[in-house]
C-alpha cells in the first residue's frame, strides 16, 4: 500500500496554504509533518481525510480497497475527542466501533490497552483531558484501518501514555499500516520521514526515513 501526493495544493478561504507538495509513504512507514502555526499541517490531514477539496495536484492510494475513498480507510485522531459527555466510556467506544465496522467489535481489549478498563461505566464527562485522549486512541485500536492521521497525538498525554502511544504506533507500522502525524514535538518513531511545510519555495521531505 502506498499513499502518494504529487504537486498537491491547498486553498482555504481563497488563500493558498501550501502548494507543490509531493511525498510518498509506503506500508510500514511514518511521516512527521512539521511547520509553524498556520503552515497547513491540519489542513493536509483533513485533505487526506477527504474533508477539504484538493485544489491542485493528486492524492492517491495504491493497493488500498478500490471501493472505498481514502477517508474511509483512515483513522483520524484530532484536537477534539469526539466523545459524548453523557455516555459512559464503554458506550462511547462501542458507538464508534459499531459505526466504523459492521462486525461486532471487541472493546474490552482496546480499553485495557489504554488502561481505562476499570472506568468502562463512568460517564465520559468525568474523564480528564488525558483520559479522554486515551479513550480516543482506543478507537484506533478497536477498528482496524490502514492509515492513521494523527494531529498532535501526544498533547495532554503523560510520559507513560506517550510511551504507550509510541508502542501502538510501532505495532501499527509493523502490521503494514501508514502513519501521518502533525506534531511540534517528537514523534517517538525511528526512521520516520519528516515533511516541512514552511520550507521555501515549496514544502519538502527533509528526511527520507532511511536510517
Amino acid at each position: 500500500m502506498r499513499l502518494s501526493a504529487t504537486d498537491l495544493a491547498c486553498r482555504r478561504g481563497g488563500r493558498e496554504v501550501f502548494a507543490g507538495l509531493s511525498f510518498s509513504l509506503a506500508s510500514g512507514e511514518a511521516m512527521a509533518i512539521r511547520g509553524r502555526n498556520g503552515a497547513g499541517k491540519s489542513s493536509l490531514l483533513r485533505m487526506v481525510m477527504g474533508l477539504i477539496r484538493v485544489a491542485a495536484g493528486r492524492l492517491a492510494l495504491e493497493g488500498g480497497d478500490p471501493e472505498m475513498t481514502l477517508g474511509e480507510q483512515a483513522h483520524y485522531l484530532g484536537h477534539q475527542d469526539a466523545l459524548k459527555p453523557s455516555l459512559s466510556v464503554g458506550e462511547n467506544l462501542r458507538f464508534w466501533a459499531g459505526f466504523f465496522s459492521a462486525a461486532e467489535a471487541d472493546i474490552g481489549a482496546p480499553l485495557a490497552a489504554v488502561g481505562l478498563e476499570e472506568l468502562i461505566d463512568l460517564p465520559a464527562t468525568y474523564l480528564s483531558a488525558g483520559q479522554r485522549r486515551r479513550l480516543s486512541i482506543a478507537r484506533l485500536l478497536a477498528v482496524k484501518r490502514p492509515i492513521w492521521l494523527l494531529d498532535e497525538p501526544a498533547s495532554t498525554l503523560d510520559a507513560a501514555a506517550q510511551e504507550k502511544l509510541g508502542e501502538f504506533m510501532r505495532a501499527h507500522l509493523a502490521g503494514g499500516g501508514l502513519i501521518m502525524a502533525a506534531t511540534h514535538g517528537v514523534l517517538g518513531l525511528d526512521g520516520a520521514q519528516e515533511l516541512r511545510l514552511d520550507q521555501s519555495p515549496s514544502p519538502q521531505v527533509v528526511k527520507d526515513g532511511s536510517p
Partner: protein
Amino acid sequence: MSPLAAILFRDLRIAVRVGGGALIGVLFFLVVVTLTPFALGPDIALLQRIGPAILWLAALLASLLALDRLFAADHQDGSLDLILMGRAPLELVVAAKALAHWLTTGLPLIIAAPLIGLLLNLDGRAEAALVLTFLVGTPALTFIGLIGAAIAVTLRRGGLLLAVLVLPLTVPVLIFGVAAANAAMVGPVPFGTPFTILCALTLASLVVGPFAAAAALRQEME
C-alpha cells in the same frame, strides 16, 4: 450493529440522559397549549374552533426547539468529522439522526396531544383526526428542519437562523395539517383531501431532507 443502528441508538441514548432534551419539546408544547385558554378566556366554542391550529402551531415550535443541536453538537466535539469518514452514506446517517430526533421530540407530542386536547374542548373524533395529522405531519417538520440544522451547523447562534430558514418552509405542512384536522371536525371538505396532501408533503420531505442536509454538511465541513 450496523453503522446506522449505532447512530440511531446513540442519539436516542443521549436524548434521554441528563441534558439530552428529549422531554423539553413536549413540556414546551404542553405549556404553550395550556396557556392558550388562559389568554383567550373561557369561550368554549372559540377554543374548539381554533384548537387544532393552536396545537399545530405549538407542535411546530416544539419540534424546532432541539433541532439546532442536531448537527451542531456533533460538529463542536469533532464527531461530525469522523462521521464523514464512515462507510455509511451520509444521506442515510443524516436520516438516522432525524429519525432519532423525531422519536424523542415528535412522538411524545403525539402521545401528549389527546390529553392536551381536553383543555381545548376537542371531542373524540377531532382528537383522533388530530393525532392522525400529527403522526403524518410531524416527521415532515423534522425532515424539513434537518436542512436548516445542516446549513446552520457551523454558526454559534445557529438556532435563530434555523427558525428563520425553516419556519417558512413548514407553511404547507401547517396549512394542510390544520385543514385536515378542521375538516374532520366541521367540514365542509372531506378529511381525506387535505390529509392526502399532508401525506404527500411528508413523503417528499423524507426524500428531499436527507439529500439536501447531507449536501449542506459536506459543503459546510470544507
